[in-house]
């Protein structure tokens, strides 16, 4: 995955079926290949437009910004990396949270956007997701988190990122005790610290087709076990087969599916 985010240019090649696609066609199909249904990355804002009723999104915690507590420096300083990502994506951070409606049903929605530092979870992403969980608890609303976090816990914030996994999970424990419904939607890719915390803690877990989902990266596993990995290793289909997700749902069906599941779990 050389480049994150929306590919540039008028045309692009589908990585699955190798068909050359007119970008606008692909985008109109919710960033899905019209030929083979390969699910491309879709930015958080477009995801919200698709999932929620028109103009129903009320965004929360828009003013939270990451600091650089470790003064982390790799090829460039972390603070500079954050600025670049903000400019490139138009997002202040990798998570967007808020309240909205799905076909008239009120929900709290959180999204981690793979386009922003691979959707990795640092202090702000952890805080936003926790605020989403706590908000859903307070308002007694269903919670939906759509994760696209290839980076897992964000290395540049070190141990503080790891602690976010415990923080969000603890909030989910309280939400669960309060009887809240949490639907986790896994999209390509959901790995490491995201998979090992909120993303796999849904009462219901859905996944988009052929998303990469897992704990350890393929390279690490290959280097450890020195075996060829199965063809479908760490895909949505692999997880479904091994009993870790409830349903695989095409992006075009997601809105309807979420509304239907919420109705089943409504308390009367």
């Amino acid at each position, binding site marked *: 995955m050389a480049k994150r985010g929306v590919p540039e240019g008028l045309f692009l090649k589908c990585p699955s079926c190798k068909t050359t696609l007119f970008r606008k066609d692909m985008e109109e199909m919710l960033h899905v290949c019209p030929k083979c249904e390969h699910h491309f990355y879709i930015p958080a804002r477009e995801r919200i437009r698709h999932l929620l009723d028109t103009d129903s999104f009320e965004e929360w915690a828009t003013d939270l910004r990451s600091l650089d507590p470790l003064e982390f420096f790799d090829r460039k300083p972390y603070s500079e990396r954050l600025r670049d990502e903000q400019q490139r994506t138009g997002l202040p951070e990798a998570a967007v949270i808020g309240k909205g409606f799905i076909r008239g049903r009120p929900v709290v929605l959180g999204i981690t956007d793979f386009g922003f530092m691979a959707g990795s979870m640092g*202090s702000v992403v952890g805080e936003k997701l926790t605020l989403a969980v706590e908000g859903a608890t307070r308002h007694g609303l269903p919670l939906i988190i759509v994760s696209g976090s290839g980076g897992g816990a964000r290395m540049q914030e*070190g*141990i503080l990122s790891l602690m976010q996994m*415990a923080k969000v999970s603890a909030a989910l424990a309280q939400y669960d005790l309060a009887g809240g419904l949490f639907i986790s939607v896994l999209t390509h890719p959901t790995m490491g610290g995201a998979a090992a915390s909120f993303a796999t803690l849904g009462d219901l877990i859905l996944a988009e087709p052929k998303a990469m989902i897992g704990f*350890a990266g393929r390279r690490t596993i290959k280097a450890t076990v020195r075996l060829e990995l*199965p063809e479908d290793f760490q895909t949505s289909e692999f997880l479904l087969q091994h009993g870790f997700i409830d349903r695989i749902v095409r992006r075009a069906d997601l809105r309807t599916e979420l509304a239907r599941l919420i109705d089943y779990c409504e308390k009367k």
Partner: protein
Amino acid sequence: MATVYQLPFEKDIYEAEASLARLEAAAGGDGSDGTASEEVRRIRRELAALKRRIFSQLTPWQTVLVARHPDRPQFLDYVEMIFDEFVELHGDRAFGDDRALRTGLAHLDDHKVMLMGHHKGRNLAERTECFYGCAHPEGYRKAITKMKLAAKYGLPIICLIDTPGAFPGIGAEERGQANLIAYNLLEMSRIPTPIICVVIGEGGSGGALGIGVGNRVGILEFAYYSVISPEGCAGILWKTATDETKSRAAEALKMTAKDLQRLSVVDDVIPEPLGGSHRQPREMAVTLKRHLLRQLRELRGISSDELVRQRYAKFRKMGMFQ
């Protein structure tokens, strides 16, 4: 004397110790009867100062090497040195009995506790069986099952953390490594008995945190706790893990006890004996035991609701942002 595993920066210490031993031998005994010569006493003082100097100036990467020292006391060593009894409880009731994560009932003086921790293995046979302390999903499932048992009978839980990370393998993924760790984080946060965690060696990422959601989280002076290993970080940032890049990564990640305390991730740093716990395991065990007893005393008598509330508040505060 058996050959010992020496870290490069320990060379001067071992040399000084060898010459001290020669002097003592020449004087006929170690002088513990009070007859040690002035010279021997002076050398002993210098040796202690040398150890103190070297170990107070360890770089983060050198600290990682100490944390991984093959002679460093491990879970089963502490079981023998600290606890009066260990009734191991095997199995996760679903798949197997992970040998990298041991769980059982134990006595610590008058306290009955549920004790668990990663064990890396002290010889090749143990290490192979334990996957060098890298637990599989069944290990995490076993841990939370036993914690729930402890909760049922009001037993405090002690978790000794020492793992390079959760095992990265095909079976581990097939059996839901991510899911099991996540489940532990959620469930640990609401266990209604005291949970005391101490990182005794390596605190490797999610594999460490999977038994790390405690009311108190302590760390031994030369242990480390990190979101990613220095090797992993170096591989991502500089493509290769050389001594130089691993060293830079260890520096950048702020993974030493002192850094973790500054970031409010650990409550206590437990001092190690002069020269590291691999040199004086018994002394380390005494200090660790004292630490655990103090934590048990402080947490005893706090109501279940309050324990859960405090634990939630502790992790709720984690992170730095504006």
